[in-house]
């Protein structure tokens, strides 16, 4: 099927409803297509996009001088379409996309809190990312807001957030967090339960908001790559790659083939390390310590090889603008091949146990079920989407180098429970090992870094990388001085956090940890 086969239908429907596309071009954010709309038509364009079966991949505001540009990314059949509109800074109002795409609820509230765009007809008027560090009416991403902020002294606790209430005989509330009992990131969960059964879960996030979008402004490309590598430390390769890809597309830089191959090796190693750690942790959450210990040892072994081969246990700062910062050591390819063989051998008996063990089955099957309808409506990607029938994978469906020359197997499940997410991740580990073997056999010789041309003023790029959690979308715009003017990394967790709120329904409170771990959305990647 040719690219954008669905787009004429979408544009025709827009036209039928009186929505005019002011511009339609292929180059502004290639390989994505861009359609420019009037601000008044924004809500209708979202409604029609939902009707033609698009997935919403997020939206973000970009204050440029006296105006604000808002972009939304829609995906269908692996084709990326960016809707764009411009509003005056003085009266930024847009129709909300949330009524048609529930997954963008918090992205719109984030945009409202940080850029100051009011979303009309949004079903939830509460703030989201803003707690008490800045006041209502201040918008940190506006150019007149100082990076140091306006508030002096201590920041108050966010005590008066209006959580939704559930009332009735025997209903009680459990507040959890932001400081959790384990070694995990902070966030607040508000459960309403009767007996052991969860009636409702409401998440309150934003605790690790570090102002990433604001402090990115003014950085040079190398500095941005470092920052992107710390959007979510467990996805450092994927986020750094997405940011670098966006900058490379903005400047017309093509990383050398060897660099692309090494990046893919790094990304697959990151995927395997995280899958191993999480599969073990899920088993641990239901008291199956054996699998936890085994997975943790394999992960440690894997990380030690990362240190030897790439100089960092988590592979931070290896992906740089234009390529990669270091090459494999002389015998690196052989070491990697041996590493893959050893892991396969170790996983065979281990995964056989995890896949078919009565105690695990009893706890994981039918626990935390996310229906295909919800997964699709929310726009979940990665293992959360795949375990609920959403087979999208950027590496296969919108491939970038070096995946465009590889066969990428995408495991898909239909049950949508914790067990299905574990199975998808086990299958992904094997698929990644196969991919890495393919990459090693065709590891090209040559340069590690291609020069990144001086960015033109206003140059923009969209990066799209399949991280281990799913699709990462990153937007970059350069300013007049060749430095970053806007950086927006959209982690897949934006869409899997709301999935957690739904899949917990009807489960018992003590199963929350395992449900949460099976989703393992990023707090840092979401809070920014």
């Amino acid at each position, binding site marked *: 099927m040719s690219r954008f086969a669905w787009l004429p239908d979408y544009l025709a429907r827009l036209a039928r409803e009186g929505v005019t596309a002011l511009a339609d071009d292929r180059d502004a954010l290639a390989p994505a297509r861009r359609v420019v709309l009037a601000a008044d038509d924004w809500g209708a364009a979202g409604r029609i996009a939902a009707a033609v079966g698009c997935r919403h991949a997020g939206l973000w505001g970009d204050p440029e001088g006296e105006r604000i540009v808002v972009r939304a990314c829609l995906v269908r059949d692996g084709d990326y379409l960016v809707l764009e509109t411009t509003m005056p800074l003085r009266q930024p109002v847009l129709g909300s996309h949330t009524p048609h795409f529930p997954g963008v609820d918090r992205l719109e509230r984030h945009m409202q809190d940080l850029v100051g765009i009011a979303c009309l007809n949004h079903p939830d008027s509460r703030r989201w990312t803003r707690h008490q560090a800045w006041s209502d009416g201040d918008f940190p991403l506006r150019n007149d807001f100082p990076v140091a*902020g306006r*508030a002096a002294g201590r920041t108050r606790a966010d005590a008066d957030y209006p959580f939704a209430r559930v009332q009735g005989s025997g209903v009680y509330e459990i507040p959890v967090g932001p400081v959790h009992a384990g070694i995990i990131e902070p966030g607040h969960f508000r459960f309403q339960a009767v007996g052991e059964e969860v009636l409702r879960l409401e998440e309150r996030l934003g605790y690790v*908001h570090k*102002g990433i979008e604001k402090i990115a402004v003014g950085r040079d490309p190398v500095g941005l790559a470092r920052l992107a590598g710390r959007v979510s*430390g467990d996805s450092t390769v994927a986020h750094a790659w997405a940011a670098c890809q966006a900058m490379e597309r903005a400047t017309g830089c093509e990383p050398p083939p060897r660099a692309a191959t090494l990046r893919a090796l790094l990304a697959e190693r990151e995927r395997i390390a995280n899958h191993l750690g999480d599969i073990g942790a899920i088993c641990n959450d239901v008291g199956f310590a*054996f699998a936890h*210990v085994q997975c943790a040892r394999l992960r440690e072994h894997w990380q030690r090889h990362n240190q030897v081969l790439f100089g960092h246990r988590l592979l931070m700062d290896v992906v740089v603008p234009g390529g990669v910062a270091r090459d494999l050591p002389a015998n690196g390819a052989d070491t990697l091949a041996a590493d893959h063989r050893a892991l396969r051998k170790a996983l065979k008996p281990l995964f056989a146990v995890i896949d078919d063990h009565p105690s695990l089955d009893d706890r994981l099957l039918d626990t935390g079920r996310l229906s295909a309808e919800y997964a699709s409506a929310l726009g979940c990607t990665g293992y959360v989407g795949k375990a609920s029938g959403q087979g999208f994978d950027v590496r296969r469906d919108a491939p970038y180098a070096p995946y465009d020359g590889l066969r990428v197997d995408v495991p898909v499940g239909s049950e949508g429970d914790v067990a299905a997410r574990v199975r998808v991740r086990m299958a992904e580990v094997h698929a990644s090992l196969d991919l890495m073997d393919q990459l090693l056999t065709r590891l090209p010789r040559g340069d590690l870094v291609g020069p990144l041309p001086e960015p033109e003023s206003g140059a923009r790029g969209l990066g799209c990388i399949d991280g281990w959690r799913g699709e990462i979308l990153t937007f970059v715009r350069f300013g007049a001085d060749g430095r970053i003017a806007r950086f927006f990394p959209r982690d897949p967790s934006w869409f899997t956090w709301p999935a957690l709120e739904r899949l917990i329904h009807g489960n018992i409170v003590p199963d929350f940890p395992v449900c949460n771990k099976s989703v393992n959305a990023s707090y*840092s990647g979401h809070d920014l």
Partner: protein
Amino acid sequence: MFRILKQSLRTGLLTEPAPPADGELEALGIELRRRIDVRLGRSLALRQVDAGSCNGCELEIHALNNAYYDVERFGVHFVASPRHADALLVTGPVARHMEAALRRTWLATPSPKLVIAAGTCACTGGEFGVSYASCGAVENVIPVDVKIPGCPPAPLDLLRGLLAALLPERRHAPRVPLRARPLAGSPTESLVRSKGGEPGA
């Protein structure tokens, strides 16, 4: 069940083998064990607080519990409540949205208590620094006893830092005379003077 036993027997012990003369982990661990015995009596209870980290430090702190390091054998364990803790292990620059929570966690920890800032961000603010959203280093919010740089600090760096936290001159530690003399040329000498936080260097 048989498959599991078979796998366990086949895999064998995974803790690091008894070290040769310079086995760093064992030397560190034994010294740490000794200091814990002297200063705290048997165990060091840690409460980890992520105050704004990117989650990189958490991954490495988790690694301390894997079979390779297995820090519980040295008397270090992680507890679920600050009420049970001897020390707070704080990561991340302190996000302003976590400022009150961190302060309250610190207040909830019984004195005498130690605060260990783990990771470059916790030590200096790191990549995030001070901004409208970040207070920067942990010491900008609560008093810090020991800093462990690194982005993130590797498990061995974390162990070195824990050892440093128990050195006699630390102000919040109980004043118990040290019976054990520091080993000459021991790893503690290079403590806070760490290898620096530049990853991939």
